[in-house]
C-alpha cells in the first residue's frame, strides 16, 4: 500500500527524497489546470544576485528597466535637433511566497486510505499554488485596465455600464462593453454571447496605440460562445469543421488564445487581450516550488511553496472586454454587482463539487 510505504519511507532521509507512486483508483472532484498567467508572461528564473534588498527590512525586489523615450525630427541644413536628456524609467518587481496548506496526518490514519492520498495532495499542491498565481495576476491586470480607464475619463473613476454608455457619460478606453451588453435594457451581471465584432473592437483598443494585440485570455464559458458563431462568421469550411470537431486552430482571428476553466478567478464575461510579454510585464521565479516533509513521532507534516514576483510594467499593454452590462469598476461599483466580476477570495477557491460528505450520492447505500 502506498500510504504504508509512505510512512515507512519517510522515516529515512532517502525515503523523504522521493516516494514512488502507488497505483490506486479514486474519483476526482474537479479539474485542476496549470497557470494561465504563465502563458501570458512566461516566468523567468532569477537569483539573489539579480535582486536588490532594502536597507529597512529583509525582503527583495528586482528592478526592471523600461525602454527610454526617443524620437526623430525634420530639420533644415542650418538647424539642430532638440535635445533629450537620457532617462529610462525603472519599476520594482517585489517577491512574495505562495504556499500550499500545511498538511498533517498521523501515520496510522494514512493506512485507512487505499489511494495514494499524500501523493495526490503533493501533485495537486503545485496546481493549487499556480491557482493563486493566477488570482494575483488577474487582480493586477484588472487594476491596470481600470487605472488607464480612470485616466481616459479625466482622472475620475466612472461607472462603465449600459446606462452610462447610453447617456454617453463614460469613455471606453481600456475596457470595452460587448455589443449585446451595451444595448441591454438593464445593468446586470449576465454575460451575453461573445460576438466576433466584440473581439475585433477589443483588438483595436491595443492595435490603435502603437501596440499589437497578440494573446487573448478567456474562460471556457466564453469560448463556448465561439462555437455558436454562424457560417457568416466562420465561412462554410470552418463552420463544418467546428460543428464536428470544435474549433481546432491555435489562433482565433489571428491571435493566440488561452482558455481557462478557472471561472472562480477569471469570471465569465471578462476577456483580456495582451501584447507580447516584452511590452507588458515580468514574472520572476526566485525559488521554484519546494516541498518540505517531516515526521515528528507519528505525525506527518508536509508543505509546498514557491517565491515569485509579478509586475505589470506597461499598463497600456492589456485591454479588456466585458460581455455583461453591469459596472465592474471596483471603485464605483455603481450596480452593486462587483462580486460577480472579480476573483473570489483565496479561501473561497476550490469549493467542493461532490456532496458525498453530505450524504448525496446515489444509490444511497451505506455500510451496515
Amino acid at each position: 500500500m502506498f500510504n504504508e510505504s509512505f510512512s515507512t519511507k519517510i522515516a529515512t532521509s532517502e525515503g523523504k527524497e522521493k516516494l514512488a507512486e502507488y497505483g490506486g483508483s479514486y474519483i476526482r472532484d474537479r479539474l485542476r489546470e496549470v497557470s494561465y498567467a504563465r502563458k501570458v508572461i512566461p516566468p523567468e528564473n532569477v537569483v539573489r544576485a539579480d535582486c536588490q534588498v532594502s536597507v529597512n527590512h529583509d525582503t527583495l525586489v528586482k528592478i526592471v528597466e523600461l525602454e527610454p523615450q526617443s524620437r526623430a525630427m525634420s530639420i533644415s541644413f542650418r538647424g539642430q535637433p532638440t535635445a533629450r536628456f537620457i532617462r529610462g524609467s525603472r519599476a520594482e518587481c517585489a517577491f512574495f511566497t505562495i504556499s500550499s496548506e500545511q498538511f498533517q496526518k498521523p501515520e496510522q490514519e494514512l493506512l485507512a486510505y487505499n489511494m495514494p492520498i499524500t501523493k495526490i495532495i503533493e501533485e495537486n499542491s503545485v496546481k493549487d499554488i499556480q491557482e493563486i498565481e493566477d488570482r494575483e495576476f488577474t487582480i493586477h491586470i484588472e487594476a491596470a485596465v481600470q487605472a488607464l480607464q480612470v485616466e481616459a475619463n479625466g482622472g475620475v473613476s466612472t461607472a462603465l455600464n449600459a446606462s452610462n454608455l447610453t447617456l454617453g457619460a463614460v469613455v471606453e478606453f481600456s475596457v470595452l462593453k460587448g455589443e449585446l451588453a451595451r444595448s441591454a435594457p438593464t445593468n446586470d451581471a449576465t454575460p451575453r454571447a461573445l460576438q466576433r465584432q466584440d473581439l475585433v473592437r477589443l483588438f483595436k483598443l491595443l492595435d490603435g496605440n502603437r501596440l499589437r494585440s497578440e494573446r487573448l485570455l478567456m474562460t471556457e464559458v466564453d469560448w463556448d460562445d465561439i462555437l455558436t458563431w454562424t457560417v457568416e462568421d466562420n465561412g462554410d469550411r470552418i463552420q463544418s469543421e467546428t460543428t464536428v470537431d470544435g474549433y481546432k486552430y491555435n489562433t482565433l482571428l489571428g491571435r493566440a488564445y488561452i482558455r481557462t476553466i478557472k471561472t472562480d478567478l477569471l469570471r465569465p464575461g471578462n476577456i483580456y487581450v495582451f501584447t507580447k510579454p516584452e511590452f507588458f510585464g515580468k514574472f520572476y521565479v526566485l525559488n521554484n516550488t519546494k516541498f518540505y516533509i517531516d515526521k515528528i513521532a507519528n505525525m506527518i507534516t508536509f508543505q509546498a511553496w514557491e517565491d515569485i514576483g509579478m509586475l505589470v510594467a506597461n499598463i497600456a499593454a492589456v485591454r479588456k472586454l466585458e460581455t455583461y452590462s453591469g459596472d465592474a469598476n471596483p471603485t464605483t461599483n455603481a450596480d452593486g454587482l462587483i462580486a460577480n466580476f472579480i476573483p473570489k477570495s483565496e479561501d473561497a477557491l476550490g469549493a467542493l463539487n461532490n456532496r458525498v460528505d453530505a450524504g448525496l450520492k446515489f444509490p444511497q447505500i451505506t455500510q451496515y
Partner: protein
Amino acid sequence: MSTIQKINFEPVSDVLPITRRDFALADKTLADPLNAVALIDGEWMTLDSSYKAVRAATIGSVGNLATVRSFPLFAERGRYDVRAMADVKMPVLYMGPYEFDTRIFDASVSLGSGAAITTVLQPLKVATVTIGARNVVGLVGHGGSADASPVVGYVTRLPASNGGKLRFMSGWRS
C-alpha cells in the same frame, strides 16, 4: 520614552512554535511606508467581521484602549513581500506563547484604570500611544484586578535594563 527605529519588534524566544498568520489588511494603504500612519512592526492588530486585520485601537486619539483580543504585527514597515501581494497581507503572532522585545510601548502613561510600567511581570494592555510624533497602537501598563481592559502579556524585562526596549511574554486574560 521609547523611539521608533527600523526594527521595533524582535523575538527572544523560538518563533517556530508560534502560529504566524497572514491577514489581509482592511486598509491596504497602511502597508505603504510613505503613509503617515503606516503600520509598524510591533503594533497591535485585531480582526474585523470580514476576517481582515485592523488596528486594535483607533489611532486618532492617544489613550484609546483595545477592548478585544489583539495580536502583534510581525512585519516591518513597507516590506516588499507584503506589498507585492494583491490582497496586501501582513503576518501577526496569532497563537502560541512567545517572548519578544518591543519598542512600541509607553511605560510612563497610566490609561483608564492602568498603571505605568514599573515592575517585572506586571500585566500589559494595548492602547494608542505617541512615540516621537507618531500615534501607534502599542503596549501600556495594566492596572491589575481593577482594570477591565484585556491583558495581552507580562513584562519580563524593564526598558531601563534592556536597552530601551520592553521585553514581554505573551499571555491573555480578558
